[in-house]
């Protein structure tokens, strides 16, 4: 969640931080949201956005939240590393776009010799195997997670009681 300096979210710093999420992140978010809401990938605005995102990639492979500005280094300490988030968002936007264009990502990655994408996306387990594996992996941590959630229960009961009394 977004952070506010000293709890003062109305300060200029906070406003700049939040509004500074930047055109790269917002463009990627718009592409994902619109494509999932039946806007055609052929739409001129989507095409231009994809071109914009392709051009915005930095030589080392990452995306930065703002196209032509440097993100303040100390921002990282607030709540996240914006470069990770920008990079992930653009990757998701590209994935969504290829899917909407009916492009087989795995096939194309194989053709281009992009092994890192093939390794990430090529299924090696069937559905049944996957379910077994994931359930098995979740079990050991499930109980400790439930324990950590328990602290919520008391406050929840308190709120619920207040609501009932209020109504």
């Amino acid at each position: 969640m977004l952070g506010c300096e000293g709890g003062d979210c109305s300060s200029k710093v906070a406003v700049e931080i939040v509004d500074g999420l930047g055109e790269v992140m917002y463009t990627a978010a718009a592409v994902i949201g619109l494509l999932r809401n039946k806007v055609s990938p052929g739409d001129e605005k989507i095409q231009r956005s994809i071109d914009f995102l392709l051009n915005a990639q930095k030589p080392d492979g990452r995306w930065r939240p703002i196209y032509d500005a440097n993100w303040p280094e100390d921002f990282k300490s607030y709540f996240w590393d914006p470069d990770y988030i920008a990079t992930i968002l653009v990757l998701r936007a590209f994935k969504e776009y290829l899917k909407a264009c009916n492009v087989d990502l795995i096939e194309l990655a194989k053709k281009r010799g992009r092994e890192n994408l093939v390794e990430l996306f090529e299924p090696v387990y069937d559905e049944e195997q996957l379910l077994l594996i994931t359930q098995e992996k979740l079990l050991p941590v499930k109980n400790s997670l439930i324990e950590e959630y328990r602290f919520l229960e008391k406050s929840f009961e308190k709120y619920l009681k207040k609501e009932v009394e209020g109504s």
Partner: protein
Amino acid sequence: MKHLVISGMLMIILSCLICLSQITIITPSKSMKIIDSMSKGVDWLESQTLDRFEIAVNILHFLSPPPASKKAINLLDWILKEAPRRGLMSSTLEYVLRYFDLHESHPELYELMLKGTYLALNDLYENGFHKCHGTLLFYEIYVHYAFLGYARAKRVETLLNLPPLLSTKFEEIMRERIDFMIENEGSWYPKDEYGGYVGRNAWALMMLSKLGFTVKELPELKKTVNFLLEHRDKELGIWGKPEKTR
């Protein structure tokens, strides 16, 4: 009979044309450029060593829904082992449960997550989230929790007997937000002097789709889609700068 054959042929031609238009949306060179760019981006992510947990979770988000690939399973394995040591990360857990279809076998975790959202929303509403009340940031956080709570309530109500007050509360909050959005021509947020409210709507649309709500489930979202399409380029820095300023 003759008419039937002709209309049948017309239908086939029409479907071919639709297919062709889909194919020509993306040229082979552009799709290759995208794949190369994605591969480079993944290389960069994997080369980062500052916080491996955050990277792993982000990669899992990128994969969503995760394929049954060896790498995705390894990531999941690592995240689940690491999560308890990192403190609770309900959103991470929710992604894991949802993407791997585990919520049906662990409904109690969902119930607790829903309660947590309810508490956060109450706290936000009653205490104004420090001094944020009335600002765009307040709206953003409030709307975020409203979406999250609504999505969780919808998902859990089929699995558990929710206290009626809880599910009703989320229904009410969501209805209120939808009415606000309709009144504001598709925007979930009030117009702000600093700008940025168009981009936040892009974020809201993406978030809702991530939570399982698109125009199919919430037809009112068509308004937000139109809002975004209409506001493209009107506000500097929102989903791409206008050509002339690049």
